[in-house]
């Protein structure tokens, strides 16, 4: 017998508001459907009313974990529109922050995966070590989460000799700890047993469903924007794209740990080859009419910004595609034929950032059972019509305060 069960939008297993409607056969999921739109913030519309400089800080707040990803994606797009060549030292520092952010994001993910798999002490130890990289970021940028390092034409702060030494010293500790976690994750029988074989996504499905980031690479496809379409200084850094062939949650964990290790090597390379010179160049305030499509490899996958300029100091359109949105179809495929108990683990394996991925308003008509996409003006006229129907005299509502 089949059951229909709804999970979320508020649920302790999912950290953000997302609703999952499943058709169950016993404990096995036969079909699943995701409902989004619970934390829509209207960032794209807001971006049209703000200048390019203000938008750097707005795009930074799309995501709390990969804040540098969104600003870099936006900044390099606008730099292309401005036909501006950023300072070389600035690009090195930008890439350095990007890799430090990847380290902190992947350490965070390892902890979350440990917690979802019931390995709570692993969660506590990885998060303790994550403090090291957060301290480095605070030391360089002045803040732990929103680094605010990007500006058109380079970065806002330079790195001095003392900071360079401190980062290299802290890196040794992080390397040692990551090696330990790699050995631990591979030799702890309960952890391996819990992750292996869960959330299978075949190579063909991963390509067909347009998965991105570690989810795609864990299915054996070496696709990485840093390699395929190098931005900043990734074209000069020697590194290999981390992949795994197991196509399950264990593979995604292995890919992330491998990426951690390659990130440490990249940070070392960047610090040792940091060029002398200015770290930013002066940028114009107004941008010629044009459009650009900017790609960036965030810790969660490919991040895409489309920017259209109209000659003023404000963008005409900003479209953001966060990596989580690209991974949703693959998640549905992973959930099918899985168990209910695996839902948090499969969800955690794509490293979801649900708030970042909310981009449009979709209304469900509960009576008719269909759903529609509405534009802002349609929504407003609907609200006005509803307000007209209310007879305020009849209702006698008093303001409570």
């Amino acid at each position: 017998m089949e059951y229909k069960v709804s999970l979320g939008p508020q649920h302790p297993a999912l950290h953000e508001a997302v609703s999952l409607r499943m058709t169950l056969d016993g404990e096995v999921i036969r079909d699943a459907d995701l409902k989004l739109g619970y934390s829509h913030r209207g960032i794209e519309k807001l971006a049209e009313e703000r200048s390019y400089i203000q938008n750097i800080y707005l795009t930074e707040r799309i995501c709390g974990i990969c804040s540098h990803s969104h600003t870099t994606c936006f900044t390099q797009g606008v730099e292309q529109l401005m036909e501006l060549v950023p300072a070389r030292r600035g690009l090195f520092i930008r890439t350095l922050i990007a890799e430090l952010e990847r380290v902190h994001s992947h350490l965070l993910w390892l902890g979350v995966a440990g917690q979802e798999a019931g390995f709570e002490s692993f969660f506590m130890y990885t998060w303790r070590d994550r403090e090291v990289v957060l301290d480095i970021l605070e030391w360089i940028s002045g803040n732990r989460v929103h680094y605010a390092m990007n500006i058109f034409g380079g970065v806002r702060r330079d790195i001095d000799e003392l900071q360079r030494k401190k980062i290299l010293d802290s890196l040794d500790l992080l390397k040692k700890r990551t090696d330990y976690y790699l050995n631990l994750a591979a030799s702890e029988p309960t952890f391996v047993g819990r992750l292996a074989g869960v959330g299978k996504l075949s190579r063909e499905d991963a390509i067909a469903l347009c998965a991105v980031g570690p989810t795609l690479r864990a299915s054996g496809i070496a696709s990485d924007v840093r390699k395929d379409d190098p931005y900043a200084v990734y074209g000069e850094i020697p590194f290999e794209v981390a992949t795994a062939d197991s196509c399950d949650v264990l593979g995604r964990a292995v890919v992330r740990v491998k990426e951690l290790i390659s990130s440490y090597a990249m940070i070392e390379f960047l610090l040792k080859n940091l060029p002398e010179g200015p770290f930013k160049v002066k940028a114009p305030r107004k941008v010629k009419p044009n459009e650009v499509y900017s790609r960036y490899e965030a810790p969660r996958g490919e991040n895409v910004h489309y920017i259209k300029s109209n000659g003023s100091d404000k963008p005409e359109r900003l479209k953001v595609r966060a990596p989580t949105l690209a991974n949703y179809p693959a998640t549905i495929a992973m959930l099918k034929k899985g168990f209910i108990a695996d839902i948090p683990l499969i969800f955690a394996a794509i490293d979801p950032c649900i708030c970042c991925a909310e981009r449009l308003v979709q209304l469900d008509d509960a009576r008719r059972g269909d759903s529609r996409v509405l534009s802002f003006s349609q929504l407003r006229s609907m609200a006005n019509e509803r307000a007209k129907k209310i007879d305020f005299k009849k209702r006698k509502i008093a303001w409570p305060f």
Partner: protein
Amino acid sequence: MSLRIAPFLPELLRSLFKKPVTVKYPFEKEAVPKDFRGTVVFDPAKCIGCNICVNDCPAEAIDIIRVSETEKKFKMILHNDRCIHCAQCVDSCPTKTYHMDLEYETAAFSRWDLKIEYK
């Protein structure tokens, strides 16, 4: 790699005898780095009233008001409840009127208490 029984145990036992890594915050305070972005500080003597900071502030947290009709004197009202501590005003200002201090304990019971006026 071969699977072992309880490979995490030695690490756990070692940590049992170490002192905790957490800091008991209100009683013990950690030093912030020298480049920390704390609260915005304004120097009215240097301001020329160009309003670049007002236009560039992403949170619309700055108001610059002309104090006297005859002299070029300005006061600044910082809405610290809206400030996102990005330090763009520090970068944008042509006369280096702004800097950030190391103050991070800015909580208040009312958002109106967070308003700071620099005359």
